[in-house]
């Protein structure tokens, strides 16, 4: 602890403690080489001990690497550097740990989905095909999804938009605060609960049967808060000067909103609505409770059971045959593709239409 007394002296006497700028550093190639060694050792141990799960190999490798770097760095570079390296290797491991399952998810879906995905698959329904037989398609499911999501958007988008306008342009006082609070609450509703609500009112109390429309109502409940939130954000980005300029010209408030505020923020609002659409497209639970699923084409969303893409995936998985697994993967691929395209287009619009002052 001689350095300590040295330091205290320093502070009082003004003689700085001698620090060398040069610190023993591990060469730059150490981490990658160590990673390779760890990977080799991980595989070696895995093979030697006869561990059949690759997950174990990976875990062994990761642990060896993390502790190897830490120990080596602590020995050569000292405690602080070692901690820094530990953090770095942990962060990298976290990244790799997450990339593997997510990449595997995408890879499996594409690789297995592509098998039966063709024009026939997209343009035919299941009809009377037995579940264990190959063939059939998802036309009825695509149709159902489009109708249900379309109806849900027709219900949720106007209500969500107008609510956001109310909150941003008129909202003061108790009512606005209450609405804001409950929009937050609504964001947290699990999708199955939304489904149960419509089930209790529409089917159990009012006595209607399952239909695409029933599902659409549940989806609308899930969509509304998302639309309100994103629209609110966008409206708040519109500078107040624009509103004041318009009002000062004697334009009534409602026309100011319609002609100035909304056009300024339309890009962002569209993006928000599209992202909300993408989110509800993948919802399965409420559809399971309210639309039930069907094997044949039903183009009328107001009557009788319909199919939807996510529910189709679930039901094909439930069948448990090779052929139905193939169909489930193919439908999942179509679903992912649809959601991704919606996302990409929405983000494209956001970037293209972004207000100059915006983020």
């Amino acid at each position, binding site marked *: 602890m001689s350095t300590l007394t040295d330091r205290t002296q320093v502070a009082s006497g003004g003689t700085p403690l001698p620090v060398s700028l040069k610190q023993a550093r591990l060469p730059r190639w150490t981490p990658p080489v160590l990673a390779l060694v760890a990977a080799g050792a991980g595989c070696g141990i895995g093979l030697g001990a006869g561990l059949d799960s690759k997950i174990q190999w990976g875990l062994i490798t990761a642990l060896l690497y993390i502790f190897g770097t830490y120990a080596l760095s602590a020995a050569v570079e000292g405690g602080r550097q070692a901690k820094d390296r530990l953090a770095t290797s942990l962060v990298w491991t*976290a990244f790799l740990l997450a990339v593997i399952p997510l990449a595997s*998810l995408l890879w499996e879906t594409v690789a297995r989905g592509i098998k039966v995905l063709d024009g026939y698959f997209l343009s035919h329904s299941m009809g009377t095909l037995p579940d264990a037989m190959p063939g059939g398609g998802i036309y009825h499911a695509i149709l159902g999804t489009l109708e249900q999501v379309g109806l849900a958007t027709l219900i949720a988008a106007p209500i969500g938009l107008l609510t956001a306008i109310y909150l941003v342009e008129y909202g003061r006082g108790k009512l606005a605060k209450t609405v804001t609070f409950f929009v937050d609450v609504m964001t947290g509703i699990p999708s199955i609960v939304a489904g149960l609500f419509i089930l209790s009112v529409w089917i*159990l109390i009012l006595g209607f049967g399952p239909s695409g429309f029933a599902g659409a109502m549940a989806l609308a409940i899930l969509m509304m808060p998302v639309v309100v939130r994103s629209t609110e954000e966008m409206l708040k980005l519109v500078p107040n000067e624009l509103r004041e300029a318009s009002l000062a010209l004697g334009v009534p408030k409602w026309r100011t909103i319609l002609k100035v505020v909304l056009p300024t923020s339309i890009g962002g609002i569209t993006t928000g609505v599209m992202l909300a659409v993408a989110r509800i497209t993948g919802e*399965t*639970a409420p559809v399971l409770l309210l639309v039930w699923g069907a094997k044949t084409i039903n183009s009328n969303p107001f009557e009788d059971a319909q199919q939807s893409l996510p529910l189709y995936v679930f039901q094909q998985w439930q069948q448990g045959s090779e052929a139905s697994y193939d169909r489930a993967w193919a439908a999942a691929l179509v679903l992912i593709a649809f*959601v991704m395209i919606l996302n990409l287009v929405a983000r494209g619009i956001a970037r293209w239409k972004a207000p100059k002052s915006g983020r």
Partner: protein
Amino acid sequence: MNSSSLSDTPPTPASTDNFASISGKSVRPGDRIFLGLSRGSGIALLVIMAAIAAFLTYRSVLAISGDKANFFTTLDWNATGTEPKFGIAVLAFGTVVSSVIAMAIAVPVAVGIALFISHYAPRKLASTLGYVIDLLAAVPSIVYGLWGALFLVPHLTGLYGWLDDYLGWTGIFEYGDGAARSLFTVGILLAIMILPIVTSVSREVFLQAPKMHEEAALALGATRWEVIRMSVLPFGRSGIISASMLGLGRALGETMAVATVLSPSFLIGKSLLDPGGGTFAQNIASKFSEADEFGQDALIASGLVLFVITLLVNGAARLIIARRKEYSGAAA
């Protein structure tokens, strides 16, 4: 975070509303209709929320009053016949345990990835990664479910056997042979599912951490990790909490991914690795098709409990964030 800082500025100048009244005339019909419409939408939203609470409660009361056993403690779900006996104990246990496992795995990893993107990765890679993560957050849960059931489950048996060899003595990690369709698998799958959203929100917060505090730490001779510990993590703490709560909310209410992966039973087993157990949402989805009207009411009752739990979680998150904000001076 964004919305709160923005909402500090009053939305519209107060004068605009007075404008019409000062002019002496009655409010323009256009304005009145428009205000009516938009306020009406807000009210409609409130009515929907009230209706959800009211109808779920109403049907739940029907179910619980017909329940011949204790609704909260019974380890069984038999909602048909003349002697219906059902309770949510197993479901509550399974929901909480699988969500806790999911959080324990996902939050540290997500914070790690978020830091990787915001502070470690090369810049080009970072922006691409951020984009990819955002896209992954949009992958529908049924796809995770399908992948979990057909890919993850078979790949976990080896790992579980290993855990059993070394940690089996704890009881929690005991594993007989069989498919890995257990609560622990559910936890892992939920962790993978919520990873993108938790990462995405945390990354957003880390990127907002003020550069000047990072430079202050650097200039004192801090290593990269010390910079993060001194200036980024304190700033991002409330963001991490809200991101985690968002993830927790999703994990609690997740239906399809659990329904595909879990092999349910109405038992609370000692081992987390052996198949069995159930969650609220999964139970509703699996029992629904065979339920009569009373059975559906019973499921609705369990859904109401799930609803209340998610409300509490969200409320707690908001409280924590509000309190942190006062203290941390995030405005600096």
